[in-house]
């Protein structure tokens, strides 16, 4: 089983900010907007180097989305930055009408998604944003897993014509993907190959899934096929179907409510392709979060490495009975 090395803890959002600065230097059409969260999104460097192309909108997210749509009409490529909750639920109608329905080339970049925002609690956590954004026709939805992947994803979406939702987290997490990786929108990445169970994971839970797979292999010889689904929409049906045809069972893992999340999208693939294999969803069970440390929250809401292991054992037990 392929092993992944933790290159050290690093913030995913820093991957966004640093890539944005690189884009500022290499693409004159890239502009950035923020709603009084420049530092949180690591947009300081961009704002210093390219003051003409940086727009501090103030605490006015609706206005920010509209201004971004307007800038895109002049062939600029706007990147908006704020927290996931304020980037989606607060401005859903603005995104729906002025960006998605109007086919505008706006990149909605959202930090502090999921539970791992931590101590700020439910008002600032976002467990619904994937669902909201994937339901908008034409919207591309990306959820990256670590610093390096966020960096390359930020570069990749600048070349994609159309609205994109790019979701990433707040804390420093294990940085394990290759900085020289190619990032292909809509293409899932098979991280480890295995014959026993498919684990489809996104965001911070990709590393937890790899850990779960490692532990199960070392302790019980179970071979997990871990797939990193960084693009939730469009979803890479082929890669997932290929894997599940081999393993016959699947666990999905995400830092999101299970209503509307990646797990539901995977269930759609299974039903539309008439595959009645057992699926188990690691996701937040239809509740708001609370204050706490990121890892404590993953544990309390049953979406940490141990929970993934439990779900894997559950689907394996079902599979053996089938």
């Amino acid at each position, binding site marked *: 089983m392929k092993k992944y090395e933790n290159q050290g803890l690093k913030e995913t959002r820093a991957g966004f900010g640093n890539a944005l600065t690189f884009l500022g230097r290499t693409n004159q059409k890239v502009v950035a907007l923020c709603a009084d969260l420049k530092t949180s999104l690591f947009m300081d460097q961009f704002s210093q180097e390219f003051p003409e192309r940086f727009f501090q909108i103030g605490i006015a997210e609706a206005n920010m989305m509209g201004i971004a749509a307007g800038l895109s009409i002049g062939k600029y490529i*706007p990147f908006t930055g704020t927290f996931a909750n304020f980037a989606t639920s607060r401005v859903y109608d603005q995104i*729906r*009408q002025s960006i998605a329905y109007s086919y505008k080339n706006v990149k909605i970049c959202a930090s502090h998604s999921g539970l791992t925002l931590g101590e700020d609690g439910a008002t600032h956590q976002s467990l619904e944003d994937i669902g909201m954004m994937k339901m908008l026709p034409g919207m591309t939805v990306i959820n990256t897993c670590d610093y390096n992947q966020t960096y390359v994803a930020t570069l990749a979406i600048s070349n994609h014509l159309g609205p994109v939702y790019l979701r990433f987290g707040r804390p420093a997490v294990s940085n394990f993907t290759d900085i020289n990786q190619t990032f292909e929108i809509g293409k899932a990445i098979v991280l480890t190959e295995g014959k026993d169970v498919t684990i489809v994971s996104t965001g911070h839970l990709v590393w937890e899934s790899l850990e779960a797979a490692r532990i199960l292999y070392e302790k019980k010889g179970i071979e997990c096929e871990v797939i990193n689904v960084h693009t939730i929409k469009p979803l890479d049906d082929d890669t997932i179907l290929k894997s599940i045809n081999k393993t016959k069972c699947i666990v999905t893992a995400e830092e999101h409510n299970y209503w509307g999340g990646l797990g539901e999208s995977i269930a759609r693939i299974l039903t539309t392709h008439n595959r009645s294999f057992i699926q188990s969803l690691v996701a937040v069970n239809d509740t708001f979060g609370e204050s706490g440390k990121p890892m404590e929250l993953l544990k309390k809401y049953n979406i940490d490495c141990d929970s993934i292991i439990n779900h894997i054992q559950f689907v394996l037990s079902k599979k053996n009975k089938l």
Partner: protein
Amino acid sequence: MNGRYLKDLCIQVRRDILRMVNDAKSGHPGGSLGCTEYFVALYQKIMHYNPSQFSMEGKEEDLFFLSNGHISPVYYSVLARSGFFPIKELSTFRKLNSRLQGHPSVHGGVPGIRIASGSLGQGMSVSIGAALSKKLNKELNRIVYSLHGDGELNEGQIWEAVLYAGSRKIDNYIATIDYNGQQIDGSTDEVLPLGNLKKKFESFDWKVLEELEGNNIEKVINILKKAKNETGKGKPILIILYTQMGYGVDFMMGNNTWHGKSPNEEELKKALSQLPETYLGDYSL
């Protein structure tokens, strides 16, 4: 283009509005009739644009954004009669497979339309973004225009945008408020009084112009020219344009029940008799 032509065009646009809304059995005639002079003045005498080769970007062109999208009939009629798409296409308004959706959209690529509107309050932000892109592109003489309903000013996003445009000196932008004093549930004074709008915008660092005769084509042209002369002076510009909902049809004038109701056959006949067909002609059904 003489005054006679513009007056005839206003009459034909009003006939288009009434016939479109009647034919679709739905739509918003009141505000559309009230804004006819504004649209005719803007597209015939003020804006610089290229209707035969429409591009989304509109490089080196002036841009217009309709924020109160429900008055789409007047927008579609004036776009068609200004050369953006065939006049006969007006007969498809609000019907299946038409580009002319109930509220404006870029669906099907309607030439002349750059953003969807209908959910209110979003057009000023979009206009500011477009104005910023004109500045970035060094299109120094090009202006962005937008139109808003007075009732639309209830929306909070408008005030986010008003604050931003004033603070950031977006001075290549002319917003107009269609001030007819009516919204769906009654007068603006009943639903949510706007107070002293001029003072409010001025305190947000806007230059404010007012025109009391918003249904007088010469006066509307003049106020828009005046506004143009105010661009480039460090302030966004607002025109408060006093209009009459339903203007041109006596039983619709100033009556908010005609905000979103289509006239039946008899009402259509009566309305059209007050606006006799000109040499510009009706569109074919």
